[in-house]
């Protein structure tokens, strides 16, 4: 009897100490499922999604720097046209990288410095007129990145072709913006070395800091805040009392739908082809008689179809017929619920991990 008590207490203490250290943090055992390989999914995310996105953005932003400096060298309509084309390419390319802000990218505020809109046109004019400027300053976040380029390259662009110091300051400012853009992207991308990828993929446990949890949270956060709200909901006045047409992305070039579709594609591909759908299927997640992965895939398709009713320029669309925008928003909102409620629950991923007891 006594021995039994002692034994069970010993076993208890042993298990407690053994488990306390292993339930949390990462471990290098073999945590892989027989049916689903999380590590392979993470390798795919690193090697097929994030790294290619950085590579593409380094190329497009470098091209943008080149064409901007050519334009500074010879400010003529041809150079401006090619600068605009490279700007459009780079802005589109950015949509493939925007959801994946972690580590260094988060540290240097990459997303905010690259794409905070609406841009502050007054601030831009002041900054150019003031001459000396430091784009590292948080106060200049709304005077840089693609939205600032959008303004400078498309709103009253004739000024750019003029002679005189005002126009050349303007051109110099554009060049400086492109250099900052490229450097920021390159800095964040340089973090993804093979060693970093190894650490990233080995962190395949189930905890707050595990790669899967963080990546999925980032992914959903981006969809909800930047794709659904930023690109569609906010201009359509969903969160305000009035329409906010001037809060649309790419207000001056008017390519908002193109950017929206590029971003939608990134989210859609990430779910359909990069592991999450497969992961849900491996867990055999069926909701209301249908695979959850199929519901999500179908919802992406429904959003794409609905987006056909809205025009190329979301700002114009909001003013012309906001009902179409709201219809698109509602369709997008359905996907938030599927991702944030159904998928996160099925994968047992907390919406931003909460560190407390449950019962």
């Amino acid at each position: 009897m006594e021995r039994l008590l002692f034994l069970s207490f010993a076993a208890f203490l042993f298990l407690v100490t053994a488990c306390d250290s292993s339930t949390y943090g990462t471990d290098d055992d073999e945590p892989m499922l027989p049916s689903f390989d999380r590590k392979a999914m993470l390798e795919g995310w690193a090697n097929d999604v994030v790294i290619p996105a950085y590579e593409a953005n380094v190329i497009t932003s470098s091209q943008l720097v080149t064409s901007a400096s050519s334009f500074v060298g010879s400010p003529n309509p041809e150079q401006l046209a090619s600068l605009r084309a490279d700007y459009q390419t780079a802005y589109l390319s950015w949509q493939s990288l925007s959801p994946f802000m972690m580590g260094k990218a988060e540290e240097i505020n990459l997303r905010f410095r690259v794409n905070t809109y609406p841009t502050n046109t007054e601030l831009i004019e002041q900054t150019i007129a003031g001459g000396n400027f430091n784009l590292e300053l948080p106060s200049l976040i709304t005077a840089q990145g693609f939205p600032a380029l959008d303004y400078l390259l498309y709103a009253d662009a004739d000024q750019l072709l003029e002679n005189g110091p005002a126009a050349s300051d303007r051109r110099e400012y554009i060049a400086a913006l492109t250099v900052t853009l490229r450097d920021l992207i390159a800095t964040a991308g340089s973090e993804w070395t093979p060693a970093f990828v190894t650490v990233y993929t080995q962190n395949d446990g189930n905890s707050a800091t595990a790669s899967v949890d963080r990546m999925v949270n980032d992914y959903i956060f981006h969809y909800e805040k930047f794709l659904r709200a930023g690109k569609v909901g906010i201009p359509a006045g969903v969160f305000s009392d009035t329409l906010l047409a001037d809060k649309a992305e790419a207000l001056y070039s008017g390519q908002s739908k193109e950017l929206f579709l590029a971003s939608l594609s990134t989210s859609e591909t990430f779910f359909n082809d990069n592991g999450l759908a497969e992961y849900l299927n491996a867990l055999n997640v069926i909701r209301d008689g249908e695979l959850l992965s199929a519901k999500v895939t179908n919802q992406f398709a429904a959003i794409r179809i609905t987006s056909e009713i809205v025009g190329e320029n979301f700002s114009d669309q909001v003013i012309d017929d906001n009902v179409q925008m709201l219809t698109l928003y509602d369709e997008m909102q359905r996907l938030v619920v599927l991702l944030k409620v159904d998928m996160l629950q099925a994968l047992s991923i907390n919406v931003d991990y909460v560190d407390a007891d449950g019962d």
Partner: protein
Amino acid sequence: MTNSPTSPGTLAVFRIGFGLMTALSILRFWWNGWIEKLYLEPTYFFSYRYFEWVKPLGDWTYVLFITAFVSAIMVTVGWKYRLASVLFFLSFTYIELMDKTTYLNHYYFISLLSFVLIWLPAADYFSVDKGADKSVTVPSWTIDCLKVFVGVVYFYAGLVKLNSDWLIDAQPLAIWLPAKYDIPLLGNLMQQVWVHYAFSWVGAAYDLFIVFFLLWRPTRPLAFVAVVIFHVLTRVLFPIGMFPYIMIVSALVFFPTAVHSRILGWIAEIRTDGLFSHVKRLRGKKLSKSVNSDLRTDGLFSHVKQPRNEKSSKSVNPDLRTDGYFSQAKKVWRSKVFRARPQDAKQFNWSKVVVGAVLVLHLVLPWRYLTYPGELFWTEEGYRFSWRVMLMEKAGYLNYKIIDPDTGKRSVVNPGDYLTTFQNKQLATQPDFILEFAHHLASLHQQIDGPLPAVYAESYIALNGRGSRVYVNPEINLSEITEDTPRIEWLMPFEDSIYGL
């Protein structure tokens, strides 16, 4: 539930175990930074009904935790026990009432037990207050009532598992277990569907029957091993903090006194110095001898004991201070001074009545859900305080829409802007939270803009593997709903059936 005198060892072990575990709980809470995170950083706190006045006290909140910790230690060593147990109950319960975001069944269990312990003579033996006089007895009901308290928790937890979600669909374990893929050895097993069912059924059977196996002598040792294994497993699989340890220690109450004497013996042996040194010395004297004057050199003990010995020695001829006589005199003195003594019928009945009343509450409260309409898992009306542990996996999404009645102006509020992630998570799935916060938003709006606005919720939840559904009726103005409005009137209907309890 008789008054027959019983050895006090069981109560002493229970007191020590309970005090130690709760003290550790509080220490752990502080160590994890949860005092700041849960009670100092949030700007809004969700209140229990009728306890809206209980709020964190800013920096004084630390004093609450210190009080709870110190009183838990006092309970453990049995120093000024009555005062300590009252202080612990009050401070701990206050802490739990500050924000219902942190509600856990086992916190309620601790509050309940600590209240009961106030009325039990748990420090009559093996304590700083009373030393280790083996001739002390306690009425057997004081031990039996603890068995009932612990037993009901298990049994009810088992009963409520008898529902179709748990037994037929293995929910929510079918969602939770596969996520434990990174647990050594067990990780792969957790992916198997049969394991989800096995855990569900064995878990229900365990909760239902373990008490009976603990009560029956032949199965008791094995049952205790099962208790340990079960709780350690739950500790490994789920983030349930100190609860497993508290339940393991509580289960010791089912053992006979002989076991507790041995446990106390071990404790005395371990403590070669310090607080318990006198106990060891007493043990050396076979515990039968009276409290000796050499105890007076024992620091804390002498401090407590001295006045009493002096007091009692006044009435006793110094020449007669032989062992037998002295201990007898002491006993007489004690029975007069301390309440809840079996000899003192009037006082004793009072504590029995109180404990009996709490016991009735303990037995009846979990059934209150029967008086509310609608599916319990959906409305959660009567879900708390009923030993429903790990029965639901609910995930939610919630936004509010506020419309000013005068201007027609509307705004969308993301509650996450006002709350911590943890609060926001609890808010999204629980109707009383949703309503309370809707009223809070309405009053905020009133303070700034005047008229009482209409507040609508846009909410979705997914329950136990069902697809997400609209939760709160989006057409209903929550400003017009009170806590007394039946929840089925403002929630969407639950379009499914869960059978069983």
